[in-house]
């Protein structure tokens, strides 16, 4: 069984400190971390590999620094890792990113299962997982809470929905995206970390994966960000509601209804 886990190194948006004057998040010196949702994907890959003979490979598209996150994956048991890194990949939106990852998966060859985290905490789009499936024309299943059964030819998964869940059986190869309920990611051990530092991580470029240059980077991105601005400023005054409990409840309810919250 050959499993590929796609991971991304992202800024730790939750680590930010608040500037007391502007009340806005200060984004200097924010650390780069392995996307939290991807730790669940890595854990699932390692657990599935442990149940069967085979290997699990971590794959990432990013700048050279992303090797750190690939090493973290190795430190918890992934067999090997590959980094896709080149100027030409820069500026890719989710369409182009999923294309590049799909080409790399083809190049790795004979892959049975691709596991992605639900979404990346910087983009928050959750589009790359299904995008990879679409580029490969493989089956997909998203929001997976559990892998109930797996063989080299098929998989049974539990998919989360707003109104409950369903059990879905599909043949492999396929792409799944996983949610936090699926497992508890193990913490890298000191032994694992030290061992991961010795691993070679090859860096693949567009030619290595036979990428069509019109489908990568800015050229391969149908969406373009045209403007970035800070969110609307916070209010400066607080509206106070006082009085008897009934009065307060009614006034608060009025505010909630005004804003279509209730």
């Amino acid at each position, binding site marked *: 069984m050959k499993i590929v886990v796609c991971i991304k190194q992202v800024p730790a948006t939750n680590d930010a400190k608040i500037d007391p004057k502007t009340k806005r998040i200060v984004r200097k010196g924010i650390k780069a971390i392995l996307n939290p949702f991807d*730790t669940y994907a890595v854990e699932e890959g390692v657990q599935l590999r442990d149940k069967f003979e085979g290997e699990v490979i971590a794959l990432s598209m990013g700048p050279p620094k992303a090797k750190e996150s690939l090493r973290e994956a190795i430190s918890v048991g992934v067999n090997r890792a590959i980094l896709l890194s080149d100027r030409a990949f820069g500026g890719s939106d989710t369409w182009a990113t999923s294309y590049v990852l799909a080409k790399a998966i083809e190049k790795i060859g004979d892959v049975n299962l691709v596991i992605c985290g639900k979404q990346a905490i910087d983009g928050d789009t959750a589009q790359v997982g299904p995008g990879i499936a679409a580029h490969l024309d493989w089956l997909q299943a998203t929001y997976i809470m559990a892998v109930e059964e797996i063989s080299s030819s098929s998989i049974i998964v539990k998919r989360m929905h707003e109104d409950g869940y369903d059990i879905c059986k599909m043949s492999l190869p396929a792409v799944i995206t996983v949610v936090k309920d699926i497992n508890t990611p193990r*913490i890298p051990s*000191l*032994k694992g970390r*030290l061992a991961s530092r010795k691993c070679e991580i090859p860096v693949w470029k567009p030619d290595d994966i036979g990428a069509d240059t019109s489908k990568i980077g800015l050229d391969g991105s149908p969406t373009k960000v045209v403007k970035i601005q800070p969110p609307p400023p916070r209010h400066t005054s607080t509206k106070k509601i006082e009085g008897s409990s009934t009065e307060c409840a009614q006034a608060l309810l009025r505010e909630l209804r005004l804003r279509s919250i209730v």
Partner: protein
Amino acid sequence: MIHHIQNKIYHVELLPPKQDSEKLEKDLEIFSNRYLRVMDSGYCAGITDNAMGLLSFQGTEMIEELELPVIPEQVMIHLTTFHTKDDLGNILDICKSKGIRHLLIITGDGSERLPKLQPSDVGATDVESVTSVELLKYINREYPDTFVLGVAFNPYEPEEHEFEKMERKMKAGATFIITQPLIERNEVVDRLLKKYPEIPVIVDAWMSRKLHLLSEAVGYEMPENTEFDPISTLKMLHKLYPECGIYLSLLGFKTQYDLIKDIWV
């Protein structure tokens, strides 16, 4: 623990390197050197457990991987509730096998990366979330007569709440107390000492000049430009709390370590 106080043995806080350290080999070396220095001085090393929720290596892994010598009375391991049941078991087994007896049991700081003990993991049926109380009970049950367990006391949190929690910690088997960092006389700590005269209390002395870091640690606003001399504060704490031990937070190993050997005499 009384032994440490009677023999004027400082507790020196040691933080294991963070997992994402960019200079891991160097950090491991620094930790080793500090640990050995503390052992040589006859002090007790207090090794933290993912302090501030920042993913770090475990004290027990550091000791094993770096083959550090364990002098049982001189090592205290902090243990939080942010572990899987398996990891918790491993840590306790390693402590037991190495003769490490002193454990500081705290609820601890979590983060998205850290797992958390579930009530069912520790056989607790009456709570929604595992705190130091449930962990204390669990350890006493699973490892009877093995460990000397201590707990934390936070004088900066609402008093009634904190004392009520302390009662429960005592009932669960805590036998010593370490306070949050103090920089002056603290009335709440005074009350604690009166309430538990038989329990060894260790006062945390903040050894860094950076008081704002203390604000973040205890969630209590210290005035920004307060002049602060850790060494004279330490001397003052000895005078104010002669019956207590001292735990040194953020001790400067280069500038302060050699100064402290003549203070507690």
